[in-house]
């Protein structure tokens, strides 16, 4: 297993629209394993393949308290949504940035699991938010797109500055 590099905003590759997965095989399962290691290593609760520069429709999540419920979603689609909730979100591609985003409170998702079998799952709370957030990534959409241009610009400047500082330190 290996920890992968997470693309950081404003990296243009985060805007790529991912392609459907045609075959769930060992190569893909290898990527999934690496993604889990990457996510757990950075205190994430969800990670889309797009964020590690793999442009396939695939994301992983673990929204449990103790980090022991790994979930894999391949070719996911949301088939039902209900209610609206505003919640604070963060993103591994936006270190230390948090913002309130309005999303459906309850959803039903259909996807393939890591064995290639279709499953449906209802979700609410943090998991529902996470699934919507990750599917956005697969479509090249980021949570800051829901914010005003002013706020988005402020976040971009902040992250660019931090990247410059980090580059200097290295």
């Amino acid at each position, binding site marked *: 297993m290996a920890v992968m590099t997470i693309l950081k905003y404003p990296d243009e590759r985060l805007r790529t629209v991912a392609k459907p997965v045609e075959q769930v095989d060992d190569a893909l399962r290898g990527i999934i394993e690496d993604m889990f290691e990457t996510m757990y290593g950075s*205190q*994430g609760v969800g990670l889309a393949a797009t964020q590690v520069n793999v442009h396939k429709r695939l994301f992983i*999540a673990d929204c449990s308290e103790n980090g022991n419920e790994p979930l894999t979603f391949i070719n996911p689609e949301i088939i039902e949504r209900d209610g609206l909730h505003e919640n604070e979100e*963060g*993103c591994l591609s936006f270190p*230390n940035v948090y913002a309130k985003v309005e999303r459906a409170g309850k959803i039903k998702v259909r996807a393939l699991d890591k064995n290639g079998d279709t499953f449906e799952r209802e979700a609410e709370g943090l998991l529902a938010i996470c699934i919507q957030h990750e599917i956005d990534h697969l479509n090249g959409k980021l949570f800051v797109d829901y914010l005003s241009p002013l706020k988005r610009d402020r976040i971009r400047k902040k992250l660019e500055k931090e990247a410059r500082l980090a580059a200097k330190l290295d």
Partner: protein
Amino acid sequence: MSKAAPARAAAARILQQVLHNGRSLSQAIPSETERLTQSERAFAQAICYQVLRQLPAYEWLISQLIEKPLKSKVRIVHYILLVGLCQLRDMRVPAHAAIAETVEACTQVRQKNLKGMVNAVLRAYQRQQESLEKQLANQAALSPALLHGHPSWLVKRLQNAYPDTWPAICTANNQPPPFWLRVNSQHYTSAEYLALLHAKGIAAELDSQLPTGFASEHAAIRLLQGADVTQLPGFSEGHVSVQDRSAQFAAHLLQAEPGMRVLDACAAPGGKTVHLLERYPAIQVTALDADASRLQRVHDNLARMQVHADVVCGDASQPMGWWNGQLFDRILLDAPCSATGVIRRHPDIKWLRRADDIDTLVALQQQILQAQWQLLKPGGQLLYATCSVLPEENKLQIQQFLATVNDAEAVPIAGIADSAATGWQLLPNAEGGDGFYYFLLQKRT
């Protein structure tokens, strides 16, 4: 996706804001906990309150565990250590989780490089806990400031003012306050509202220490269990408010007749303004405060309780800027003060106030008192109030005032011994109210 910023980093940032930047807890907590869940927010707050209550002990422990103080650039890590120690000493958090999560907080405050150091310090404390705590107890036996978690200057002032009872005051300052309610007498007597609470299965009791001469129908109610205030019967309609027992005596002491002009001179946030209008609905109240942003809370309070007052932004010590020349029948002067009576609610006060602030406040209070006295009708009454326990701001202040004016006389408070000479000094009490002071003055005709 990543989860919102966790509680421990937020707690460290709050402590830094208070102890380093001099901001108050009530300013720092909202901005730093905005993105926490409700339970994380409560956890971060509990840590901050506990650390501020026993700060000298925590600082002593850190001084034993690290060789030299952390420099200003990495000072945030000092506050992370306070947060870690607090969990290990005083919170019901499993030690492994306390340490792991606190170490992780270093990343969130961008001090990844000091993770190892935080881990080592917290583990060292864990290993030596017994002997360190024993040494701390020995040290504390020699230092009242360390034992009671108060700054030395304040301990000295309390010792001078209360040679016998100062340790009890310090102890009460370190205990979380009980939950007091004020019943809107336009809707219920206290006994009626208490019955309503009991019917809902909420444990509560009437003020059991009400002095004689005070009407029990207006007694404060103490909740004996935690409750979400917004769920209390009639809360949103303004039938009940949250207000400490001691502060509730203001409207009782300043008795007003229908039609009287009443000035609430330092009104924000408006709790007492509203209380006056509940007790005496037919009076005309002017609510004055110098801080325009805090006056918004007066407007909010008046709106929630559906009562009217003229809200004026102005300086109580400079009436020329706002006064229309009409004298007042009653004035409530809840003067700006050291707030040393409400330390149990605001433990940050101990570290934000400095010894020389007291002289400044005493001078300001005298100035306001002199100015307000000019606005009072002959025969009218002025109630001087503070949430301080220091005599300089209270009985000495009034004695000074009485020595300089010739048309003021003290009005005794029924049931309170010596109140015409020294006023009524309430001390903080674990089961009772906050530290508070009242003196009632009347202008000779």
